[in-house]
């Protein structure tokens, strides 16, 4: 009995840690969708970019982790602004299928570039945290997991506060609500688009660095970009709070499903369970828990 509860608690804890990373990535995704109505299929590749660049700076140039981290964020910022200017700006006003395809193509380009520069073998970050797991209420948690969770939570809270209280955050919310109203208020929406892409790339890079520390870095990180879809659909495509809650929920649900259903279905349930939830959510509540319901007018 105690074993069952500790199994459950362990699953919940791992799910929570994973969910914190999902929340970060989902936050970035929803941010881009809210301001520019673009579904960013390249979110996973932005994640990979952050992880690989940070690794290159730490291992190749021997920069201390803190500075490498900040430099990576700066590079992500520049990459995002360039991408938005060169590729996404001309796509304003195009039908939705073209926009989806552009981000899919972008993800292929980024993934190929990373593969050309850094190859395909799994790389590991040098050890910053100790290997000893910490005991917490009878459960074991690796130090790297604990710090990742704390860090992700801090980032999520910081960004949520940024949107609520800073003037740039307010400008982004106005642009997301209605671009024309934002323009009449004197907001430069081109800058807002660039800013939302930049923030999204930054949070994805943070997520990538965290995941890279936990799991090692290879091309499979890009799959995170697709895992983010169930999170944002659960929370609602245009709700930041929804993205956060959706991320945690999917992380926990995925681990629970994996833990309890793997013996039944023979493994791999962790990867498909979020998508089954996705279909169920789409049937019950298509706009998610917190999304705005879209009314179509003729």
């Amino acid at each position, binding site marked *: 009995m105690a074993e069952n509860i500790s199994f459950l608690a362990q699953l919940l804890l791992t799910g929570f840690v994973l969910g914190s990373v999902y929340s970060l990535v989902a936050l970035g995704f929803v941010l881009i969708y809210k301001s520019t109505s673009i579904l960013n299929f390249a979110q996973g590749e932005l994640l990979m970019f952050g992880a690989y660049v940070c690794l290159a700076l730490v291992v190749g140039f021997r920069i201390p982790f803190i500075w490498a981290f900040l430099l990576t964020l700066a590079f992500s910022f520049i990459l995002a602004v360039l991408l938005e200017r060169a590729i996404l700006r001309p796509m304003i006003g195009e039908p939705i299928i073209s926009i989806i*395809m552009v981000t899919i193509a972008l993800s292929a380009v*980024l993934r190929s570039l990373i593969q050309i520069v850094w*190859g395909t073998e799994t790389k590991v970050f040098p050890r910053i945290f100790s290997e000893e797991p910490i005991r917490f209420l009878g459960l074991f948690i690796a130090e790297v997991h604990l710090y990742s969770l704390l860090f992700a939570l801090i980032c999520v809270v910081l960004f949520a506060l940024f949107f609520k209280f800073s003037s740039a955050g307010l400008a982004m919310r106005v642009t997301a609500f209605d671009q024309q109203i934002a323009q009449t208020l004197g907001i430069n929406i081109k800058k807002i688009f660039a800013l939302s892409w930049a923030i999204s790339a930054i949070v994805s890079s943070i997520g990538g660095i965290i995941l890279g520390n936990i799991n090692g870095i290879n091309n499979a990180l890009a799959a995170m970009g697709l895992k983010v879809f169930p999170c944002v659909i659960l929370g609602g495509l245009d709700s930041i709070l929804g993205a956060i809650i959706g991320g945690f929920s999917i992380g926990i649900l995925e681990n629970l499903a994996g833990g309890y259903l793997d013996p039944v279905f023979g493994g791999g349930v962790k*990867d498909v369970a979020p998508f089954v939830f996705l279909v169920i959510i789409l049937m019950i509540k298509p706009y998610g828990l917190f999304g705005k319901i879209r009314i179509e007018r*003729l």
Partner: protein
Amino acid sequence: MPCGLFHTVYKTDEHIFKTIWVKSWLVAFGFFLLLLPFFVSNYVLYVCNMISIFIVGAIGLNILTGFTGQISIGHGAFVAVGAYTSAILTTKLGFPFWIALPIAGFFAAFIGMIFGIPSLRIKGLYLAIATLAAQFIIDYAIVHWERLTNGITGISVPSPTLFGFVFDNDKKFYYLLLGFALVAVVSGRNLFRTRVGRAFIAIRDRDISAELIGVDIFKYKLLAFGISSFYAGVAGSLWGHYTNVITPEHFTIVLSIDYLAMIIVGGLGSILGAVFGVVFMIIVPELLTTVGILLKSTFGEITALISAIKGLVFGVTIILFLVFEPDGLFEIWRRVRDYWKLWPFSYR
């Protein structure tokens, strides 16, 4: 010449090939296709066969996404359903290819319609995401339902036979696949001269208005998913019997994205565009592979690099097309053709 072509009867206006010139060029092209296998290597025939198979699948996707406006990122999964159904019917139940193929098509259509049911409630982006989920779920089912599909080991599929004549080399398959591609193109093009086709286009343009004028959108949306998945299933079955072995690796989301890329580069909403898109998206990677093999002697082992470069070229091509020519190759063809037809005039 067409700028002086006037129709007095609706029937002649609806003709697909309107002038004697177009019809003669078509006959000449037909002869070219029939005589091609006698002049080229097996590798070129292999590429042509791949083009034929993908034409069938791409026309299916274009019917759903280009003509009915339902974005589907799960097309690869329906191709997989068709391929596996056909493989299981021919290996485990001993059906001949000619019966297994239609059954595979209908079963894929059935599965397609099931995943089209959400289209009643959700539209646009959300439907795209639902089809994405369908892709992953079907992928998972194929890999893990080992008693039925052999999981990741895959199934060995026999070549089709017809009264003792076995289709086992590229040349024989060329004519078979050419026939199927031809049927797909003709049936696809004719679909849009019928009531069903017009209903699809109405749904794409404004589905609420279509409903107001009496088009039963749920029925026609389901039908679009069904017809599109039928084409996909047939393409999958043909592919399985051509390559003689199918594994789940071939039917991942990469296949769905390839199909989407083909119809977008070729031109959404046009059958000829789908053909152009397929030819373009198959020939360019093959050219890159050939270049890679040629460069191998000078640069050494760059096979892995070539596959990454293929991905890069794929992405960059699509981005360039979408930014500079969003209506695809068909639009370029139309401009060239109109310029040629109407010269020295500018407008018809």
